[in-house]
């Protein structure tokens, strides 16, 4: 009989990385994601406490800021995702949660672990914007969607979150984990189409 106490091995949300033409999609596994919800009245206090105690910037609406290894991304009024990439998933989720919870203890703010709710994908390469045009109905032109921009939108009618991580066509896509494999197929189709269309147009 197998050892019941052997730690469970995590499964990946996505399959392999995808590299087609000038587009790459790399799965980000094992990260910690917390949903931070803050009542309207306490937003200022929360912002101050996070800055003072943890050096974290609570970004304005539709923006993401990374500081002290943690990305905070605004995804709705009074709602942020706190994201920390980590090597050992579970302890780190606990750690981030504990730290944040401890910090915010006296404030009317709530924290929900949604680490496994979202599957994250890093998108990069010069063709990324062409691929995204086929997948999400938001303007990802640099002028409209600059470094650090966040959009809560949809892909094939599935709610997703798109973050521009750097000015040079680097994005992160967060999708509901249960849809990840299916959406990865759509992303692959779009990427193939972009590459083939570019070849065809000459």
């Amino acid at each position, binding site marked *: *009989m*197998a050892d*019941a*106490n*052997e*730690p*469970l*091995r*995590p*499964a*990946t*949300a996505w399959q392999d990385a995808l590299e087609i033409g000038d587009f790459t999609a790399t799965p980000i*596994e*094992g990260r910690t994601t917390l*949903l931070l*919800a803050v*009542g309207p009245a306490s937003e200022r206090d929360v912002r101050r406490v996070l800055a003072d105690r943890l050096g974290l910037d609570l970004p304005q609406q539709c923006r993401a800021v990374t500081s002290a290894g943690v990305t905070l991304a605004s995804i709705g009024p009074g709602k942020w995702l706190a994201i920390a990439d980590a090597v050992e*998933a*579970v302890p780190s989720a*606990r750690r981030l949660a504990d730290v944040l919870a401890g910090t915010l203890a006296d404030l*009317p703010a*709530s924290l*929900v*672990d*949604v*680490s*496994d*709710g*979202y599957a994250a994908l890093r998108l990069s390469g010069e063709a990324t914007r062409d691929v995204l*045009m*086929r997948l*999400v*109905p*938001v*303007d990802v*032109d640099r*002028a*409209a969607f600059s470094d650090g921009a966040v959009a809560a939108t949809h892909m*094939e*009618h*599935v709610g997703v979150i798109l973050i521009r991580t750097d000015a040079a066509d680097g994005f992160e896509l967060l999708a*509901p*984990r*249960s*849809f990840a*494999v*299916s*959406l990865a*197929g*759509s992303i692959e*189709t*779009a990427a*193939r*189409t972009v*590459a*083939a*269309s570019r*070849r*065809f147009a000459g």
Partner: protein
Amino acid sequence: MSQARTSVARPSSSLQPFRLAEGGIVDRSRVLLYSFDGAPLQGHLGDTLASALLASGVRLTGRSFKYHRPRGILSAGSEEPSALVELRRGDRREANTRATVAELYDGLVAQSQNRWPSLRYDAMAINQVFAPLFVAGFYYKTFMWPAALWERLYEPAIRRAAGLGRAAGGPDPDHYEKLTAFADVLVIGGGASGLAAALAAARAGERVILCDEQAHPGGRAIDDGRMVGGRPALDGVLETLAELSSDPRVRILPRTTVFGVYDGRTYGAVERVADHVAVPPADVPRQRLWRIIAKRAVLAAGATERGIIFADNDRPGVMLAGAVRSYIHRYGVLPGRRAVVFTNNDDGMTTARALATAGGHVVAVVDARSVSAASAATAPAPPPEGEHLLGAVVVRALGGTEVSGALVRLASGEERTIACDLIAVSGGWSPNLHLSTHLGGKPAWDDAIAAFRPGEALPPGMTAVGRAAGVFAAADRPYAITPMWQVPPAAAKGWRKPKAFVDLQHDVTDEDIQLAAREGFDHAEHLKRYTTLGMATDQGRTSALPGIAVLSAHTGRSLPETGLTTARPPYTPVSIGALAGTARGAHFRPVRRPPTYAWARQCGASFVETGLWLRAAYFPEPGDRDWYTAARREVEAVRTAVGISDVSTLGKIDVRGRDAAAFLDRIYCNTMSSLAIGRVRYGVMLREDGIVLDDGTAARFSDGHFVVTTTTANAARVMQHLEVCHQTLWPALDVTLASVTDHWAQIAIAGPRARDLLARVVDRPFDIANTAFLYMAAAEVGVCGGTPARLFRVSFSGELGFELAVPARFGQALMERLLVVGADLGVRPYGAEALGILRIEKGHVAGAELNGTTTAADLGLGGLMSRKKEYIGRLLAERPGLVAADRQVLVGLRPADRSARIRSGAHLVARNAKADAASDIGYVTSAAQSPTLGHAIALALMARGRERHGEIVRAVSPLTGEDVEVEVTSPVFYDPEGARLRG
């Protein structure tokens, strides 16, 4: 201004006798082979099918819809009503393709439509003999007797005649895609005006998208082959395109038609990515749909020429005068050698000159205008040879399958026959204003151009420029027109009077219009519907205005008063494939996979769609007879040992905040605030109208923290309900909601050995003993050495049961671990089928009972409805109809003859009643063969059902031919006391 690139009518090859030696944007060095009706032909790169056919001297391209009259090429663009062919073959067959826009490619195959046995000898042309019967609306007046013959005889006959081309033979082998683009300015049309607008916007630093429906932008600048500032206009076009293309903020989309304007400055456009090749290369879509969101739009779509109505004006060889120029200048093809030009405006003269310069012989310019009107215009002079007949009209085109002459009536009234092979007609130009009206704008009449132009109220952000705006006059070239819509027909009446066509594709004649008006259909919209004028694939681009002109002449109401019919998208027909994009077949909708999906697939599970989810339905084993063998095995495992099932698809909502309990009290009909920490409670939510919305559980983890579960089907709806209630009704409540459905993998562990199994994975020191972890308890625990988990002691199956939730990434490993560590306990996975049987045995309601018409009381849950608080749905649940004594309520059924089956969907009638509506007392909502009880069981909704336990009634299903006696019972068939749950 003079003609550019003078060509001479010297055939470039004997296979293309009408190809000019020079001129146009075709590449004569690239010979393309193609076939039409099986005949091998050749053309050049840059040709359309129409220009290639004309180059080869082919003019007869099809037969008309109703009368099967010979038809040819009228235009050179997307307005073509007549030259429709079936393009390509088999699964790629495209019916009704306009030869004038189909780009030629090597190996193209086209066939004429609507003819039998052949295009030249069409037996159906016999219809022309009966033409006097087939007038507008004739079918409304006959085929009524006897009624029984309609479906059997008349309709099949009418339907055989329906349509022109045939749909593809099988599934479309090509693919499509859709995308969304944003711009500051969308320029619709790449003629001189559109290019100028794009350039101006680009130079101002704006983001520009320019669409032109043709393969090569340039519009009339190319078609007219004019010189601008001493250089061919084409050079200017190319320079502008070069500048635009070098700007990264400009996107030029040739072969792209803007087909519709929608709210929010959203434009639909379709790009024909690979229609100009035989087969799209791998991964290249055939077409793509663009949703363009543009702050501004410039309508620069140019104008469409219309003809003049005269007898037999549909003969192949009658062509729009502007199209003649397009063939000469764009394609290097001379559409005829001996031409009569018939015009009511200056533009006809330009065509005459173009023909003459290209080496054609213009026999006569028949100018409908009076001497004074024509000379008042500073029109370009008519070509030197040939006659300029002022005040004259073409009365009739002569010839059979091709034009052989024109019958001309001179100003004097004298009629004369002029031999010719081409009649170039210009009845004036109509601005392409369609897109300006898609959001409801009305066109405005403009006397100066004798046409409608875009009106005042354009779609938000849109402006119209150039010919689309009705601006035809360049400074050096005014445009003078004296309207002439219809040539007064010769006096001849009778059975075989020649026909004068208004709508070539639908065979609508001037007389049809007059007849319709006589019958009272004298409003443009009535007329259209009665005669089908303008309802064909061209949507009346060339015929709408002449048509209402005939009507206006008949009624005496002016043209602006008569008005155009409503234009609707699409501007030109759009393939359904493009509108669908990638969504078809397995990709129709995204798939939602539970955490253990991959494992279940490996196990060979069979799956069932539940919304977008694919859930394991059952786990077959070799030798199973059918699905039921597997499901029964799984049920037995749960009832006798232990079963495990992935129930992650249930909706899970994290509810937190100081007011979480108060909030849930208002949402559920039962009370949640009294729930102790560490406990779970079953709850029912009502809609505002008092009907059950959903059921599920709420677990309390702390004062201000609940976890709510919903049914799989209603997960999104309940989440929305909670959000909306919170944000609109009680925004001040301190509550935050988070959907955690995807975060948690939840596995049900059920059966008498469930605790034994669970004990092997739950980390110490947590105590799951019956006394420590009670029925309906909840806790946060660790499993398998530290994986955080939530444990709920709940049961859907009626056995001792738990649901264990771990972060989704561990779901699969937990499933596998449970199977390994529980092997000696007889653990088995069970799927949705077994789950369904287990819950019916236990009398739990599910989707079939929560069908949006049942109250809590109907389902036996009335006791939950609190009387001490207010909650959504409480008031309206008290309406008389919802509390009536004769409502259908939940009961159980079992067959009187235990070997019989019960059909879900059967209706209930009293034992001796007839199976008719009057006796109907209810229906079966869910049925199963119970492995546990060894006979069929069912849940049903039945009038006064609670009073009828023990009664024998019949479950009748005339649809499936079943009629069985059943005994009405309590809905709980298994362990009604619930002893097993608590064990």
